[in-house]
């Protein structure tokens, strides 16, 4: 519906009547009806509809909070990420030679696949750096995915290195440790980039009085300790799990030396399937412990011991 200015004048409604208390501003408005019935843009309320992914995840994938300038804790975490990023990029290059990559399968050219691999690692490092610097979760997420893409190789049952300055290829244990260190670095990279966002959120919430933190040093100290302790434990445990193909023959060797020798030389056991088998056994045990409610028992034990 449109209303032109002349016909929009409603003054005739008041003709011959005494309108005592109709507000003057309203009378003024009544004579100024506009020529358009277009709804002003700011009149439409903003409705935040979650996207399909947000609905699946129960919230935004990347927090939409605007952060204040980073504090010392966040700056330190950012520095930590940069350090890990450099180490991770170098190690990714080391443990993912171009042979067996998707690019090698597609092009059949070692040079092209090397360039592609270097490009992906470079991009992963670049987006990781930018994402951490800007504290933008989208870039760090892309970086994480690119690092995973870089490690996707076919027919790599045995670990091979593209660059081996220390001759690690000759020692299965050292090679194992190298791969575990690489994996730990990757997981720590995931955690640290997430930590930058989390502590930026916390810092902003504290500074905008949304959250009050009592004794922040202790809480931050706990996180710092965990950043050191957890990767060490994770690394050691992972080495034990991944050495199942060595540990199993040792255990079997107690009962039968011949069987142990056959197991040691078995292609299946020293390949990725051996690793998978070992992992399966270990996690069956872990699953069993959880099924027995070990975390709760552990908590009860700690409470009792403290008493």
């Amino acid at each position, binding site marked *: 519906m449109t209303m032109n200015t002349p016909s929009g004048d409603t003054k005739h409604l008041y003709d011959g009547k005494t309108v005592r208390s109709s507000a003057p501003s309203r009378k003024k408005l*009544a004579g100024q009806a506009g020529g358009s019935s277009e709804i002003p843009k700011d*009149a439409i309320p903003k409705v935040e509809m979650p996207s399909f992914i947000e609905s699946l995840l129960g919230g935004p994938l990347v927090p939409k909070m605007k952060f204040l300038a980073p504090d010392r804790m966040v700056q330190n975490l950012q520095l930590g990420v940069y350090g890990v990023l450099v180490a991770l990029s170098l190690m990714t290059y080391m443990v993912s030679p171009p042979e067996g990559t998707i690019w090698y399968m597609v092009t059949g050219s070692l040079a092209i696949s090397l360039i592609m691999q270097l490009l992906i690692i470079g991009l992963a490092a670049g987006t990781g750096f930018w994402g951490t610097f800007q504290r933008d979760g989208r870039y760090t997420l892309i970086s994480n995915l690119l690092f995973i893409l870089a490690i996707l190789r076919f027919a790599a049952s045995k670990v091979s290195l593209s660059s081996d300055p220390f001759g690690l290829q000759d020692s299965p244990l050292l090679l194992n440790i190298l791969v575990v260190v690489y994996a730990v670095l990757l997981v720590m990279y995931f955690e640290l980039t997430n930590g930058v966002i*989390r502590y930026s959120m916390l810092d902003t919430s504290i500074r905008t009085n949304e959250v009050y933190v*009592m004794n922040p040093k202790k809480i931050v100290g706990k*996180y710092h300790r*965990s950043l050191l302790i957890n990767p060490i*434990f994770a690394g050691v445990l992972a080495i034990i*799990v991944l050495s199942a193909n060595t540990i199993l023959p040792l255990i079997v060797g107690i009962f039968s030396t011949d069987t142990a020798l056959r197991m040691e030389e078995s292609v299946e056991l020293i390949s990725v399937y051996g690793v998978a088998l070992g992992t399966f056994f270990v996690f069956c045990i872990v699953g069993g412990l959880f099924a027995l409610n070990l975390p709760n028992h552990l908590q009860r034990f700690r*409470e009792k011991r*403290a008493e």
Partner: protein
Amino acid sequence: MWSRKSAMLGSLAVAMYLLGLTLRNEQLVTIAVVIFVFLTWAALFGGHADVASSGRRSEEWSGEEGLALNSVSAMRKLSNARLFEDGELNVTLRMQNESPLAKILEVKDRVPEVMRIKEGSNYILMELGPRRETFIEYTLECPLRGFYSIGPVAVRIQDPFGLFHKEKEMHVYDDFLVFPKMEDLKDTFVKSRVPKIFTGAVNIRQPGPGSEFYSLREYFDGDSFRAINWAAYARSGKLMVNERERDAVSDVIIIVDSRAVAETGPVSRNALVYSTRAAASLAKYFLGRRDSVGVIVYGDEVVSVDRDTGKKQLYVILTKLAGAVARGNIPLQVVVNRILPHINKGSPIIFLSNLEDDPTIVNALRDFRARNFDVTVLSPSSLEFEFDAKRIDRTGYEVMKTERDVLIGELRTLGVNIMDWEPDMLLSTALAGARGF
């Protein structure tokens, strides 16, 4: 409980593990194993908390709690159980850790959405030592009337990486009441034509025994010589006597429209908010004048406060007004039919409504006028609230405003004292406008 982060890491690990086996890629399997170990370690030993990394807020908590939270308890104390709009409420929350182990806790005391935290915080991250307690204090600003309750207290404990958490909702609730705020009125210009003799009376607009001057009239036999106005006699040459305004108390009935349509407009600026504040101010004024005041609030039901006097009556009325919720659509005619037999003829009736979505308004008010009730209508305009909030366009506003003006005009012809109450107008100004001052 798994956080979103741990669920994503777990899924990634499973995917990598299976992909590693398919592609015969040991690095992928190794990464998957490290992630599994990382998660297992956090699940086994994660007894402490830090910031909510998962992006989940305590509102979404489902209440899974572990042993670690069994020994945590909470108590709350409020500075007031009753206060007025825009008042402040100090909340003290006592958190107690009865365990011999220190705990890092995330505590959120849930407050009503309309409240603003003025000082302190209701969301705290803290380390609570073994067998220790701590007090959390914050101040709430209460901008809107109503019955409210604070609680529950949500407590969360999680591992340093935010992978797993345990949560507990402590059902500690404290209720409080926010009364509508009141405006000090010098005069309401509303006076009854029907006196009700009572001790401690106030003047009504009728001559009679009283203390305030009403008018001059000629002397009749039997008039007291003390009432003769000698100055007027000197001026006019006729014996003139002073008439005084008759002192009496009267019944005042306030009707508040609390139908769903009364809440049209922003939460803090709508007809119901204005009506309840006006009703509270008027009740205070009339009770201060020692009138009997009765209040009727109607929406999905008719709630009435019987006429009475005194300070206690004010709080009874304020409590009813605080609890008025915009619901239902009872026509005014139903309310009028119900109350007519119970009110004294000629009593002042003050009706507070946005006059919307009720075709019976004209007939209902005509019924009042036909029985010689002194009807005053204060009508906060929902249209103005909506227009100010830019929810309706100019054309729509003009059309609806015209309809409203026509309705107001029609009511005025019935002898109803009516005022189109604009949002920025003081109550006293609106009242004066309604009464033609």
